């Protein structure tokens, strides 16, 4: 009971002490000076001619006329302040509390007491609050000279907040404030991230599904990069990610945004991208690349180079102009801008709004513009950057709907074409025919360029034709329809004449293509004649049938097709297309003639399936014909 009473009394005393003691005291009489000199740490140094205002603030607020950038002539910046510790006399131990984005070395009454980051290169991991313990003997002095030697990194200019002094809990309190400030600054951006990520990912998926609307791809990348840029980096900053990584991500993002913007505008306008804009985007990206490389090189000299290149007022204006000139691509893409194009008005107007909004950032370089006006312009620029995004989404959604409808139409047309092509394939042979005919046809696409026909005659003979149109798809299928139509109207039963007639009809109509074709007339007694126009030789019971070949059809008119004689017993005559021998496996190995010969005795379906399993690269057609013994089906 006694112990509890004592504890309560101690707690009350502590609370009373805390109530009387301020959480922290702020340094006073702070003065600043560019350059570096170890004597500046000493308490007795005469700093009366030092500046009472921080020489640098965020570069965003700079104007050329202000000329304050010119004052940045040193990598190092010194700050000297006085700390009166009397109000904190009851609190021990005490700390000097620094909140700054720069690397520093701290001196208390001339003694080095702590460092943060690398005092030589200025590298730090993140903006954090640091507390440097004040030794008890110094605290007794009450009036303390605090000298801080800041080493500027290449991208952090602000000296930060005025130093404070306070007990340990004041350090934690200040850290809490930092987090609250960060949350206040970053939360709106962070809250927007999921929305932009969802939009960006959706756009990329839409592009991936069809890979046709490149504007969808570029807008998706722009949205994702923008989301990463606005919130991601800010988040990284407070997670203690090294400045090199932060800036590397920022550089990559800026470069991606530069290229994606240029590509996006021209894709949206459905115009080819002029090479000029690629060069401009590359030049604009160069500044980020140079900065990043310089940052990666250790040492102040490299940082100094970046400084001079980028932060000198006129250099800054130059690079900013280079950066923003990329947005002129929107004007060029929709040139002439004063002529609104029917059907593209919305995207044209919004592209220009977006472009102008980006270029409004340059207003801050106009000397006479007030801070209030700048804030207004910034708000307009912000709104004008985001509003077009949603219009672009609306436009792209419309285009995606049209494209999907067109694709459906095309699919239906291809389906019809395939059905028509199926009608061109011969129906099964009459059981009374002296020949057993079999075929397998596996087109590589919806419709194919291979064809075959079996045309029986009243005398029991059978004209068998197999061929292949060079190329694939609908073009090849249309040639197939022409050839099959010509064959069905062909009155001759002489293979050489049939091929010559087909050739004459095709010369000059295939736009550089050709048709390989083999034609055989099989007589009921087994005597057969074969003529060949560049097609693969047929197989007869495991051997290749030697047939003289003429040029493929459709190349030149003056070609003759010699006939070769073959006598059929009960053997199977097999015709294959090049889709069999040129089937290619995953190792890039062709099925080849030797394998085709080895399986030539199998059924048409088996041969075609074997080639397909090897790796179909082209239409596969296999036709087999066997003479039935004495007209009886075998």
């Amino acid at each position: 009971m006694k112990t509890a009473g004592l504890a309560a009394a101690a707690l009350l005393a502590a609370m009373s002490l805390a109530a009387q003691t301020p959480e922290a005291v702020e340094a006073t009489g702070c003065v600043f000076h560019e350059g570096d000199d170890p004597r500046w740490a000493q308490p007795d140094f005469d700093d009366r001619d030092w500046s009472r205002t921080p020489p640098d603030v965020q570069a965003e607020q700079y104007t050329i006329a202000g000329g304050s950038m010119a004052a940045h002539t040193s990598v190092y910046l010194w700050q000297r302040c006085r700390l009166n510790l009397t109000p904190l006399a009851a609190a021990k131990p005490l700390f000097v509390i620094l909140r700054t984005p720069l690397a520093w070395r701290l001196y208390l009454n001339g003694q080095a007491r702590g460092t943060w980051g690398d005092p030589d290169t200025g590298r730090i991991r993140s903006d954090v609050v640091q507390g440097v313990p004040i030794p008890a003997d110094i605290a007794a002095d009450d009036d303390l000279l605090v000298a801080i030697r800041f080493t500027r990194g290449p991208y952090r200019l602000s000296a930060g907040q005025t130093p404070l002094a306070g007990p340990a809990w004041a350090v934690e309190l200040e850290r809490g404030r930092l987090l609250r400030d960060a949350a206040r600054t970053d939360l709106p951006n962070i809250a927007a991230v999921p929305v932009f990520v969802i939009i960006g990912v959706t756009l990329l998926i839409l592009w991936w599904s069809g890979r046709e609307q490149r504007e969808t791809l570029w807008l998706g990348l722009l949205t994702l990069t923008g989301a990463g840029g606005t919130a991601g980096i800010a988040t990284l900053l407070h997670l203690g990610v090294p400045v090199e990584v932060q800036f590397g991500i920022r550089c990559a993002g800026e470069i991606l945004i530069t290229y994606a913007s240029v590509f996006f505008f021209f894709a949206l306008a459905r115009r080819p991208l002029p090479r000029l804009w690629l060069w401009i985007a590359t030049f604009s990206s160069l500044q980020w690349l140079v900065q990043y490389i310089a940052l990666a090189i250790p040492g102040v000299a490299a940082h100094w180079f970046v400084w001079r290149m980028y932060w000198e007022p006129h250099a800054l204006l130059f690079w900013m102009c280079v950066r923003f000139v990329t947005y002129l691509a929107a004007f060029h893409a929709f040139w002439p801008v004063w002529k609104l194009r029917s059907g593209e008005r919305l995207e044209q107007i919004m592209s220009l709004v977006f472009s102008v909004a980006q270029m409004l950032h340059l207003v801050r370089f106009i000397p006479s513009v007030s801070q209030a006006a700048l804030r207004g312009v910034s708000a307009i620029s912000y709104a004008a950057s985001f509003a077009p995004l949603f219009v672009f989404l609306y436009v792209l959604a419309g285009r995606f709907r049209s494209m999907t409808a067109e694709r459906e139409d095309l699919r239906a047309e291809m389906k019809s074409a395939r059905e028509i092509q199926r009608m061109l394939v011969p129906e099964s042979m009459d059981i009374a025919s002296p020949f057993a005919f079999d075929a397998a046809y596996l087109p590589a696409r919806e419709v194919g360029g291979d064809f075959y026909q079996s045309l029986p005659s009243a005398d029991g003979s059978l004209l068998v034709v197999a061929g292949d149109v060079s190329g694939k798809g609908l073009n090849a299928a249309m040639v197939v329809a022409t050839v099959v139509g010509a064959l069905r109207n062909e009155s001759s039963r002489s293979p050489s004449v049939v091929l010559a007639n087909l050739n004459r009809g095709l010369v000059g109509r295939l736009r550089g293509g050709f048709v390989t074709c083999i034609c055989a007339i099989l007589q009921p007694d087994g005597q057969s004649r074969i003529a060949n126009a560049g097609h693969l030789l047929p197989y007869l019971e495991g051997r290749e049938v030697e047939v003289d070949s003429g040029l493929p059809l459709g190349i030149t008119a003056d070609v003759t097709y010699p006939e070769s004689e073959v006598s059929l017993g009960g053997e199977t005559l097999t015709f294959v297309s090049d889709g069999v021998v040129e089937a290619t496996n995953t190792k890039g190995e062709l099925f080849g003639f030797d394998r085709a010969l080895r399986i030539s005795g199998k059924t048409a379906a088996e041969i075609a399936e074997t080639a397909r399993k090897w790796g179909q690269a082209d239409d596969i057609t296999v036709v087999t014909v066997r003479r039935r013994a004495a007209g009886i089906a075998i």
Partner: protein
Amino acid sequence: MVAQTITRVEQSGDLAVMRFEGDITSNSEEAILGKYRELAAGTARIVLDFSKVPYLNSSGISLVIQLLMAAGKASQKVVCFGLSAHFVKVFTMLGLSKYTSMHPDETAAAAAVA
């Protein structure tokens, strides 16, 4: 992924050697016919080097045929070498042996065109 066709032309008097590299497909028109059209006037003998051509599809063969036809009309002699056994057979079946002779190596091709 189909490799792009690269054509290097070595011209020496009335002899031109066209060295192809990569698959020959429908995308090879400039590499085959374009380069053929750029041959010096007065070219009478042409050697086609297929030793670095792993694959020709039907559209690519069509381009070679067009080259052979154009050379035939211009009374130019064309020989080729470096074709794999598979494509020697394909060229033979296409009846191209009447328009060009096929040789196993450059020495034999050079001798044939000398």
